[in-house]
């Protein structure tokens, strides 16, 4: 059956340059991560600790959010809640209008991607500029990120060189990565200095102290949260942790899992706007807490694990399917294995349910997940919800049920619980194997790349009966 996603996947597989770029970066990231966890026992203990920290925070989520809000407000940070992305966008717009601002400079934020913030603000006459190098590349190319951590990973330096040259004709054409980065530095510096509002994402929110932590290498997050007079941070509600002590273990496993670094260049911990007598920093700091389906996911104890994600990207780096099709083929904000479980839950199985088929359940994602999210188990669960007859909390449940497929499984099951019938069918298949071979040869999805397995003349049941193996 050809479907929207299968068509998209096939198209992605035909894009050899994107595949090469993706594979090359993914292989580097895998190598870096491996080198960052040289000691298996240490990895296990770090992972166990991080898993417990996230599980603890998730189990106390409503209480921690209230504590976080109280402490942020005490510190002078304004807290806004948004049930939907529309509400979150509107909140940003209101803040912009309050400050009479028509331009916003953005640090890297997947939540702002989830909100579709740039498009929304553009329609309201506000200009957005991405300042993370990868995000800037994506914005200049009018594309979407193909990876959570390395948004432009599908592009190689030549493509970026051409892009920069077409967008900044004054800069001489160069394929030198350092020169490209310097061009971006020069272009953005003026904007950092003049932007009235900066927006960033958040990696961890600390309930105990009312602190927002941003983790990055470039300094764009620091710039956006420091240079403009107003800073808006956007975060999913699940990013809260209980206390300061929870940060070092999560930080250490996050950066190692993501890029193999023991720590990023900058860890930026924001607890308040500019204090009296301070000479810089924003005078207003806002935090927008976005739900967008998270509290619904939270209601199910099995699906809730999805919310423990710390967005390191290791699952996609190690996913053979992501490696082959790249991030864009998923047509989601977050691609790869975590996107495969997150996006259908957020946006509905009716539109994204088929994504759950984009997995062999090989388990590579779970193996590297720093907080032990059982991704294959949740994929399995969502496949069930996609085709189940009764409704459940996930929107679009049952939308993937096809009559023919359901009947095939019914017949298969009947056959498997009636050994007499099962043995007759397998026996007939093997005894008429020339005919069976010809039928099998017509299963084109299989035979496009593979020879058909030749049926033997007798089944195992028959052979063991002949050998008089005890049948209890």
């Amino acid at each position: 059956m050809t479907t929207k996603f299968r068509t998209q996947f096939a198209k992605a597989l035909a894009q050899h340059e994107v595949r090469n770029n993706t594979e090359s970066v993914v292989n580097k990231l895998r190598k870096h991560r491996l080198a960052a966890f040289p000691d298996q026992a240490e990895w296990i203990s770090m992972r166990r600790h991080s898993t417990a920290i996230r599980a603890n925070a998730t189990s106390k989520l409503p209480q921690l959010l209230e504590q976080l809000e109280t402490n942020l407000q005490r510190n002078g940070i304004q807290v806004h809640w948004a049930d939907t992305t529309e509400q979150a966008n509107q909140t940003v717009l209101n803040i912009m209008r309050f400050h009479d601002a028509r331009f916003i400079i953005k640090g890297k934020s997947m939540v702002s991607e989830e909100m579709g913030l740039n498009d929304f603000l553009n329609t309201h006459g506000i200009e957005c500029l991405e300042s993370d190098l990868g995000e800037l590349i994506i914005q200049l190319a009018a594309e979407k990120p193909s990876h959570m951590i390395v948004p432009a990973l599908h592009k190689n330096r030549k493509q970026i060189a051409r892009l920069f040259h077409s967008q900044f004709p004054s800069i001489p054409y160069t394929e030198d990565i350092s020169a490209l980065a310097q061009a971006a530095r020069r272009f953005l510096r003026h904007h950092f200095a003049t932007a009235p509002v900066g927006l960033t994402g958040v990696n961890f929110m600390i309930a105990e102290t009312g602190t927002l932590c941003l983790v990055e290498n470039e300094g764009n997050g620091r710039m956006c949260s420091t240079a403009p007079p107003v800073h808006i941070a956007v975060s999913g509600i699940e990013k809260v942790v209980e206390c300061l002590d929870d940060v070092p273990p999560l930080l250490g496993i996050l950066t190692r899992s993501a890029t193999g670094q023991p720590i990023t260049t900058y860890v930026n911990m924001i607890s308040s706007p500019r204090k009296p007598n301070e000479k810089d920093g924003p005078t207003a700091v806002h935090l927008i807490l976005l739900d967008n389906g998270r509290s619904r996911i939270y209601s199910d104890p099995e699906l809730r694990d999805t919310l423990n994600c710390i967005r390191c990207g290791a699952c996609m780096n190690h996913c053979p399917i992501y490696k082959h099709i790249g991030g864009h083929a998923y047509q989601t904000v977050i691609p790869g294995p975590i996107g495969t479980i997150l996006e259908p839950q957020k946006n509905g199985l009716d539109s994204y349910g088929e994504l759950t088929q984009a997995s062999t359940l090989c388990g590579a994602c779970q193996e590297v997940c720093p907080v032990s999210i059982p991704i294959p188990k949740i994929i399995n669960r969502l496949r069930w919800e996609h085709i189940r007859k009764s409704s459940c909390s996930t929107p679009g449940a049952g939308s993937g049920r096809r009559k023919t497929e359901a009947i095939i499984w019914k017949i298969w099951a009947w056959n498997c619980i009636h050994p007499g019938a099962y043995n007759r069918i397998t026996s007939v298949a093997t005894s008429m194997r020339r005919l069976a071979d010809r039928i099998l040869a017509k299963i084109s999805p299989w035979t496009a790349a593979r020879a058909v397995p030749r049926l033997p003349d007798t089944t195992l049941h028959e052979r063991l009966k002949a050998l008089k193996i005890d049948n209890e």
Partner: protein
Amino acid sequence: MDFTRASAGPKPNTVYLFGTCLIDLLYPQAGVSTVHLLEREGVNVIFPQAQTCCGQPAWNSGYRDEALAVARAQLKLFPRPIPIIAPSASCAGMIRVHYPTLFKGEPDEASTFDVADRVYELTEFLTDILKVDLTDLGEPTTVATHSSCTARREMNVADRIDLLLDQLQNVTRIEPDNAEECCGFGGTFAIKQPEISTAMVLEKAKAIENTGAQQLIGQDCGCLMNIGGALKKQDSQISHVHIAEFLWDRTHKATP
């Protein structure tokens, strides 16, 4: 997944064989060789003829009612407190890891814990419990190995195939590049997402071709059928064979 067995136990006299549907229909000689290998170690094998499939295809496709019905039919066939041997990590993993989830809240949930604890993947059983000592009688050869994802990440027994092959003096074992990466079979995945599956199996087949081996050995017939089929389609000289068949063929004296 951290699974520790309640009892590793001493060497048993009798075991059940769970032959798996794929071996039953497509690779019966792997099942027969399994029986030979076990019997040579003095283990009596019981093969309940009413067995069919573990239910994994339906389970992985979201058809839980159908999976449950099929699994329940198997559950009843292995009542004695003796090990259940499956010459497939995928089917062993289904019983060991997924049956307890599948039966959660069902009246017969408790019996899945017992069965889950007794099921062994063949190479795991040969090395850990029987501690087999193999003598190679075959000609020198080079083989490439492919451990399934379930052997690697669900049953944690991926290295047993290596331990067994390394006992064979005349066998040179080569691990292909990217050995830990999935071959793209994934059961119904290969049919539902054939384009991605093809891309994955072609890469895997190439890595195996690059080893220059004569044969491809694995403990799961799904992967073997997938990779072997791709190799054959490309007219590769590398044939594929299940570890049980390979071990038996090289270590028993042919009766004239």
